[in-house]
């Protein structure tokens, strides 16, 4: 016989956030499609660009792996913070998860913190895998304090920008429409958003890509690893997108 006498109480917020983050990251890594977008596609893009890029006649004197590895790292951040988050959140709404958790002791800020922490966990994993593949292909990044700070800031602001936009998409569209839109936008930005390829390879269109969140993130990560510099302009653009995305999300997001 179970002792059912009431002993209500919320777990400490920190523990709730950890539980939420571990649950969400586990679900993300267990889902085949999510894993494909988070790790498999970026690794294929990296290997494909480095081995096949020789025929592209890019006006670059540096080894291709040095150009593409930072770009693919940026792509990985975009895929997790935007595509994976949007799809996961869309289906959470559909299956009533957000509503159900809304009746648990987990506050909204805890839910959001849990999601961010889950993204960070997945991104760290991506960084390790893609970095290792890059190094195996001969990547030799510039490692200095400014470069590391620039990379971390790019990750933080890039995640903030793409996550807020991803939540916006997931909050206004139905789950299936979110799935389609998040994948389509991902492919469009991968091809034309200057995330993997530098803006300079897009000719005049490069001026447009620089103000896209994808182009800004790609440039900021490249500046960090190529020149060991902090790309303040790119960080500013990502911050602006994060503000736009957050305002849109806050205005439109429906929890059910």
């Amino acid at each position, binding site marked *: 016989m179970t002792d059912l006498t009431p002993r209500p109480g919320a777990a400490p917020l920190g523990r709730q956030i950890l539980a939420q983050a571990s649950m969400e990251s586990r679900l993300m890594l267990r889902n085949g499609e999510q894993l494909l977008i988070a790790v498999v596609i970026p690794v294929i893009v990296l290997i494909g660009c480095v081995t096949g890029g020789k025929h592209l006649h890019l006006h670059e004197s540096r080894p291709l792996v040095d150009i593409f590895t930072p770009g693919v790292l940026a792509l990985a951040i975009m895929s997790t913070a935007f595509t994976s988050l949007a799809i996961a959140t869309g289906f959470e709404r559909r299956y*009533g998860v957000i509503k159900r958790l809304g009746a648990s002791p987990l506050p909204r800020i805890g839910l959001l913190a849990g999601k961010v922490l889950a993204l960070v966990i997945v991104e760290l994993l991506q960084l390790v895998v893609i970095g290792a593949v890059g190094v195996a292909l001969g990547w030799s990044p510039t490692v200095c304090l400014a470069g590391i700070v620039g990379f971390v800031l790019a990750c933080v602001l890039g995640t903030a920008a793409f996550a807020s936009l991803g939540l916006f998409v997931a909050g206004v569209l139905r789950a299936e429409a979110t799935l389609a839109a998040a994948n389509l936008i991902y492919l469009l930005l991968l091809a034309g958003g200057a995330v993997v390829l530098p803006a300079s390879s897009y000719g005049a269109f490069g001026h447009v890509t620089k103000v896209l969140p994808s182009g800004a993130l790609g440039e900021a990560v490249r500046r960090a690893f190529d020149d060991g510099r902090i790309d303040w302009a790119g960080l500013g653009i990502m911050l602006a997108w994060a503000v736009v995305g957050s305002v849109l999300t806050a205005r439109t997001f429906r929890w059910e």
Partner: protein
Amino acid sequence: MVDGLVMRYADKTAVDGLSLTVESGSITAVLGPNGAGKTTTLETCEGYRRPQGGSVRVLGLDPVRDRRELLPRIGVMLQGQGAWSGVKAEEMLRHVARLHANPLPVGELVERLSLHECGRTPYRRLSGGQQQRLGLAMALVGRPELVFVDEPTAGMDPAARRTTWELLRELRDSGVTVVLTTHYLEEAERLADRVHIIDKGRMVASGTTEELTRGSSATVRLVVDRELSDDAEAALRVAVGGWSSDHGIGLESIDFASRTLEDVFLEVTGRGLEEETHD
């Protein structure tokens, strides 16, 4: 607890000046047909919706303003889904348990509600009854002092329904207040200490099951100790008809119903199942 509640959707009034109070440590059923406003009322008590008229107090708290203080103290079973599509039942229950300070032992709940049969099946492929049982477990795991269960046994087979009723009774006996909505008359009658019947957003009747069913002496129930043959049944009809015309009383109806289909189903499946599990 709820006083003069009014809730509208667009031009439709879902709840229309409803007032009801729930006694702590009891089972209260809110009974009504689909669309009567049961879920809307419950979700207002849970803080999902803001009252558009009247006021709601739960454990002395305002469910919207004091939501953070209220939520850890209550358990909620929603109608419909409420878990990640790829999550396993026990994994989901453990997750909800981790959000609470003193959760019930997850293993015991899994056992009680036969959730182990869900195994490694992802949530989206569980049957409706399995999803319902998981929903109930999630409502109870935090050791709440008050639980709101919305149509708890909808989609459950009779055996699971009985287990659920037993569990809800045990909760009450342990000092937990239980508020449930249902559109099953039988569920309200067998389970609830107090029943509020609502229809079209208004309270139409309220009281203990006995008070509600005792009510008038216009319904007479006759129970006999054996199966009636066709002849005996015809004779009884004639006798009753004669008695009513002698006394100038009109007969609305005479029913010769033996038992409900659910009784039969329980006897041939439910009870059998339970005997097996007790071995």
